[in-house]
């Protein structure tokens, strides 16, 4: 199965080429576009990006695997990321993680991540990239059942 960027993303890529002195610099932004389009970064997308920026496939692959936010596998469930770093742990992130695992792991993919820069709202998580802060079990139920 091959991968092609849709028309909207092709326009964005064209715009990006004006923004950077070299095509190579567009790798991160284009990886984001690929992930947005397909929900993950497929092997075919990496091949396509390699052609666009005129860099070897292996370079794109090495970049895509360095950064934790690029997902190289498709997830069939929405993703919840629970912060586990110190300020969140001090405010009960371990219990939040356990609660989510027990109650919501069939509907959501629940993963732990390091500090997301929302320490005043600890404990916190993201749901499909959106920040949810000052978590309690009640708040989790409200947000997840309200959807």
């Amino acid at each position, binding site marked *: 199965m091959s991968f092609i960027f849709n028309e909207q993303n092709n326009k964005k890529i064209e715009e990006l080429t004006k923004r950077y002195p070299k095509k190579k610099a567009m790798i991160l932004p284009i990886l984001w576009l690929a992930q947005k389009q397909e929900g993950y970064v497929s092997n075919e997308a990496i091949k396509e990006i390699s052609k666009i920026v005129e860099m070897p496939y292996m370079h794109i692959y090495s*970049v895509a695997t360095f950064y934790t936010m690029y997902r190289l596998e498709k997830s069939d469930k929405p993703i919840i990321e629970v912060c586990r770093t110190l300020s969140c742990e001090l405010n009960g992130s371990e219990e939040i993680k356990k609660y989510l695992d027990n109650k919501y792991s069939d509907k959501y993919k629940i993963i732990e991540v*390091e500090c997301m820069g929302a*320490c005043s709202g600890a404990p916190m998580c993201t749901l499909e990239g959106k920040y949810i802060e000052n978590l309690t079990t009640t708040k989790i139920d409200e947000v997840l059942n309200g959807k």
Partner: protein
Amino acid sequence: MANKIIRQKIVSKNFEIPNSHKIDVALQNGRYSTLDKAFSKDPQELIEMVKQSGLRGKGGGGAATGNKWQFVTNKDGTKYVVVNADESEPGTFKDRQIMEFDPHLLIEGIITTCYALGSHVSYIYIRGEYEEITEVLQGAIDEAYERNYLGDNAKYKVDITVHRGAGAYICGEKSALLESLEGNRGNPRLKPHSKTEPEWYFDQPTLVNNVETIATIPFIVENGAEGYRKFGTEKAPGTLLFAISGQINNPGVYEEQFGVNMLEFLETIGGGVKNGKKLKAVIPGGASTPIIPAHQIKDVTLDYECLWGFNSELGTGGMIVLDEDVCMVKTLKNLMRFYNHESCGQCTPCREGTSWSEKILDRFMNKTATLKDLETLKSVSTIMNGKTVCVFAPAASGVIDGILRHFESEFLECIK
């Protein structure tokens, strides 16, 4: 003697104004009003002004901003201004406030910085997790283009591109950030031999400054170097967006002049320790700064020089508060897990050292550690310090040493 808590607002002045991120509201509240004054000066005059103001980088390092600007203009080539908005240091969440609540202040600062450096291209490297904030920031940039503060029709042409990272703590290190901005893995570069070297983006002289640093420039243009020096200390003039998190009643971001007493700050602004508990320790400026035990905190003032005297650092000013019930073994395990996860893997002492440390700490957590484990932990920390490309491993080493310096007895209790 400590400075008074005065809640002076230099970059946070507009934070509480509704819709402060929209350009019409921003204009009504003074944004872009310093540009004409900046353009009326010779670029070198602006650089001298920033030097005289004593402005220091607010991303953690505290380097003299004016000197950094001069290193760039001393070189020939296309100049780039890169704003470090990677903000990934645990306990730090201040730059996001500027980008969310006053993005036009940052844009105004960028325009003046570009003018002073003779640059027409700026990148804001923002951490990937800040997706919602990126949208606000991009919205503000689009508005600034429409109103001709940016782009070809501006009085001074500047193009700003927001470049999203993708989840790598190390990209907050400026050379790793530039590697990432060039489309590479975020591996830090070797430091130059000369201390007067700028950074380089695709081999062109480049400035990397933190968001808050750049956002301070409009105030300095408006009030002059002396206006900025009215606040803070002789060596650390001005203010910082201090953050408080952990076990504290009022977690948040609060602007304050440098040099105020830490305990007073935590009690009056922070509202004291949560649940009426006693204070055990504070990590003063983001996870990477060595811990300060409670009995020393009354003597600490919030400025770079004072914290050095306590074998620690002011860092980003993001304080993490720990109460009397916190287990220091667990705290260190939490932090070493972070370092192990975030090590870029380029240097062996760091890649292996952070991983070893976490594994050793697991044994302390399970109470299966031996005295030999404690010795190994100390020796790993020594090996990580000063033998790597960047300061990541030395920071991890400082975290271990700091906790062991003050709380070794808790580790001895975990030995079988």
